[in-house]
């Protein structure tokens, strides 16, 4: 199929349609709303389920119900809406039914703003809902990748009976790029052996997250962890750029990774041996590659659109073996390529002491710059 000019929010919506999504439930919230608008006509035209729910609470529980039938179900939202969904996400995880969520992140906390941000990293990657559970979190950096990952997300969700979150920021949701849509898959005709879709010719089934007997809940939690360990072994994804001869690496995901790539190219043009590691699966985190790189590189720069959330994971998996710097722009601000390039240069010229806190150093600098300290 030919490339077409597609907006991110429309692109993931259509990718989900082509992946065979049976049911979509959502609630309007900027900067994600175009997906809801698009699916409001696209789904009924294909005789599939669509409801504009009364709230994100309603939407996620509609997804929960649809997911229990073994059909492909999804929702999309943005940061404050996803906060409301956390209850349902925990129940869905506890019930071990598959679903797909697209979170188009915006500036927070609270109502914040509608500008692009990456401040839901901890919220999504490290839970947010209660209890032990592990969503698969994928972070595309362009429209094509958003399409490809959404298209694949349903199969991943079903394979591991897991929540899959496509974590993008407002700029990816709103931007237009040429991209190619995949072919239309036919909808599933066979459904899992656990699906509660009417007990015709078989014993009745039951799906819930309840396990009142603690030893049974314990076994459930261990089963969820076992499945997660399979995800960790099989589903790590990342992209590297200019890393073959690199002495330094920038680490950034999504839009921050994309801006960093421009900065890396510019720094390369100035002769700096720097490359980019862009985690695509934030969960499972590409811990092995970062651990290995930490043993041979001279420094790392972590770039995020938040106060340094992935930074903590990078420090854990590199065990602080090498000098690490951080550049963050929280609150809906996108870092400029020049800022990242300058940060690369500072890291090379003045590597910070190994084990020193990258966030503290960044904070001291940005505070002075913004006049807030």
């Amino acid at each position: 199929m030919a490339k077409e000019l597609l907006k991110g929010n429309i692109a993931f919506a259509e990718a989900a349609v082509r992946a065979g999504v049976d049911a979509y439930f959502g609630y309007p919230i900027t900067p994600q709303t175009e997906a809801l608008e698009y699916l409001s006509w696209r789904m009924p035209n294909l005789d599939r389920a669509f409801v504009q729910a009364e709230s994100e609470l309603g939407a996620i529980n509609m997804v929960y119900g649809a997911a229990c039938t073994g059909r492909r179900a999804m929702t999309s939202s943005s940061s404050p809406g996803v906060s409301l969904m956390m209850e349902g996400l925990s129940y869905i995880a506890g019930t071990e039914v598959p679903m797909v969520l697209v979170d188009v992140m915006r500036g927070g906390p609270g109502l914040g703003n509608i500008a692009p941000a990456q401040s839901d990293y901890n919220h999504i990657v490290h839970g947010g809902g209660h209890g032990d559970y592990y969503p698969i979190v994928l972070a595309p950096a362009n429209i094509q990748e958003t399409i490809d990952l959404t298209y694949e997300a349903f199969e991943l969700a079903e394979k591991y009976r897991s929540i899959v979150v496509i974590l993008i920021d407002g700029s990816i949701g709103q931007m237009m790029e040429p991209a190619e849509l995949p072919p239309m898959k036919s909808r599933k005709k066979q459904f899992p052996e656990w699906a509660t879709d009417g007990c015709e010719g078989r014993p009745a089934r039951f799906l819930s997250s309840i396990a009142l007997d603690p030893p049974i809940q314990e076994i459930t939690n261990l089963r969820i962890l076992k499945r997660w360990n399979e995800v960790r072994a099989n589903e790590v994804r990342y992209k590297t750029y200019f890393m073959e001869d690199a002495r330094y690496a920038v680490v950034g995901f999504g839009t921050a990774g994309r801006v960093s790539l421009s900065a890396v190219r510019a720094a390369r043009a100035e002769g700096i041996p720097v490359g980019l590691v862009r985690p695509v699966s934030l969960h499972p985190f590409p811990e092995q590659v970062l651990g290995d790189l930490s043993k041979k590189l001279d420094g790392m720069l972590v770039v995020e659109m938040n106060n340094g959330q992935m930074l903590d994971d990078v420090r854990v998996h590199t065990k602080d073996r090498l000098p690490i710097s951080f550049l963050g722009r929280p609150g809906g601000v996108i870092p400029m390529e020049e800022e990242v390039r300058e940060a690369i240069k500072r890291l090379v010229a003045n590597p910070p002491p190994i084990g020193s806190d990258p966030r503290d150093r960044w904070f001291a600098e940005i505070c002075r710059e913004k006049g807030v300290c």
Partner: protein
Amino acid sequence: MENTITQKESIVYQRPASFRPAPTHYCPGCTHGIAHRLIAEVVDEMGIREKTIGVASVGCSVFTYRYFNFDFTQAPHGRAPAMATGIKRTLPDKIVITYQGDGDLASIGMGEIAAAAARGENISVFFLNNAIYGMTGGQMAPTTLPGQKTSSSPSGRDVETAGYPVRTSEMLATLDGAGYVVRRSLHSPKEIHRTKKAIRMAFETQLRGLGFSMVEMLSSCPTNWGETPNDAMSWIEDNMMPYYPIGDFKVHPALAEVKI
């Protein structure tokens, strides 16, 4: 001819196929068991056991899935109507029901139930109102009567600070999406009989695609009311029925053809 009597024997009263042979966890004198049994009988009578999907709620009825012999899920507190919406919209040919208590439906889940009714969601809701939170040990519910003593209104519900009870059926009946909304009681054989007919009508409403249906059932909680099972039945009649009158608040005109 000596076989004649044997041949004429038939079982006239037995456990419905939709009702599992499981001992319930409900307290003596609780009307949950009656409501369960009525729903199971109707599902059997209509021959829809294999196409019915239930959504349990949070509260004493969290364990309803143990007792019904058809597919069941179990929603977060108050969210059963949203979950049922997801199921029904995905599988429109199935019969989808929720079973909820008054704390679940009329307090934490007020948003979900009102929205489902407003959308005319083709689901059937069985709503047990016993004017108290049972599972957590007898706290004030949205339906607790003025002056009623509970563990969180120990001096009796003071409407000055705790507000007034919610008459959910009357409220939901104002919504155009509601096809069938009635209140019944489970305190006497006569009312139980009428309740069963209403349950049947709720299913008929859904089968005919006439919109949201709900049967509110006045129910007992002898344990948390501090009443004997017998006195609890009188308590429903003496205290609840004056505030929560039995009645049909919304009956879709197309239901007139349904004769039960």
